């Protein structure tokens, strides 16, 4: 396994590896954004992920989330853990089957260097940002906002305000026939993951 591990990391910039391996990133939600962010970050070889979600896998999730037909009815955290472990065993996975609220953000994600917001509703996004930024004014939080629909690639962007990063078009609302679909959800999730790496590796070449 050590040989596989060495090979896994062999193409990375050697200066990135210790930072990557010591990084601990929180993902609040394991749905469309969260499951995709988790897969991408495990692919990078990130040291540890802390992932929280209360929900179970439903058939409607399969259109954009990193779950499989055989996992219907399983908790998302159990299903995602098993899928991530199939990629490789070099990322520590701390899973919490719980609904995140103002009280448990700090106990669950407090040890993380960066928090990635991957919730569904705007209300819960606001709660998470307010709670995180109040508790940890210096720690980054990366939010997804505006990712429904199809097309319009170039409207998707990242905006920074202090320690808050927003990925998405900040415009497209879920309404009527505009639903979240795999390509744009995947793009925004990967923008969030990419943004996290950029923060981690800042100043290192």
């Amino acid at each position, binding site marked *: 396994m050590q040989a596989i591990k060495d090979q896994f990391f062999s193409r990375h910039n050697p200066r990135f590896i210790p930072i990557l391996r010591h990084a601990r990133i929180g993902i609040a939600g394991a749905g469309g*954004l969260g499951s995709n962010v988790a897969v991408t970050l495990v692919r990078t070889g990130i040291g540890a992920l802390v992932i929280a979600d209360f929900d179970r896998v439903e058939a409607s999730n399969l259109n954009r989330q990193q779950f499989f037909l055989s996992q219907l009815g399983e908790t998302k955290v159990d299903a995602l853990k098993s899928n991530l472990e199939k990629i490789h065993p070099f990322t520590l996975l701390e899973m919490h089957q719980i609904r995140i609220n103002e009280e448990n953000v700090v106990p669950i994600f407090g040890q993380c260097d960066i928090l990635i917001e991957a919730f569904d509703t705007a209300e819960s*996004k606001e709660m998470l940002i*307010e709670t995180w930024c109040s508790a940890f004014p210096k720690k980054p939080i990366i939010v*997804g906002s505006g990712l*429904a629909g199809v097309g319009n690639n170039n409207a998707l962007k990242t905006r920074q*305000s202090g320690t808050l990063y927003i990925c998405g078009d900040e415009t497209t609302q879920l309404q009527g026939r505009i639903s979240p679909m795999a390509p744009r959800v995947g793009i925004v999730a990967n923008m969030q993951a990419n943004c996290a790496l950029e923060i981690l590796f800042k100043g290192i070449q």
Partner: protein
Amino acid sequence: MNIMVNGESMAWQPGMKVRDILNIRNYTFKMLVIKVNGTLVKRAQWDSYRIPEHAEVSVIHLISGG
């Protein structure tokens, strides 16, 4: 005197609060996050938090979907 709101210039008035910016700019999104000079201003403080001169204000729309 001016402040910058999402990169656009806006007139500043003494005693101006976060809520005034939202009203003047006619922001109608229900869920917003407001940052003033990089510091988050919680929803509960929108009626009381004073905007300093030359402030950089970010108004971020939070949209469901994920």
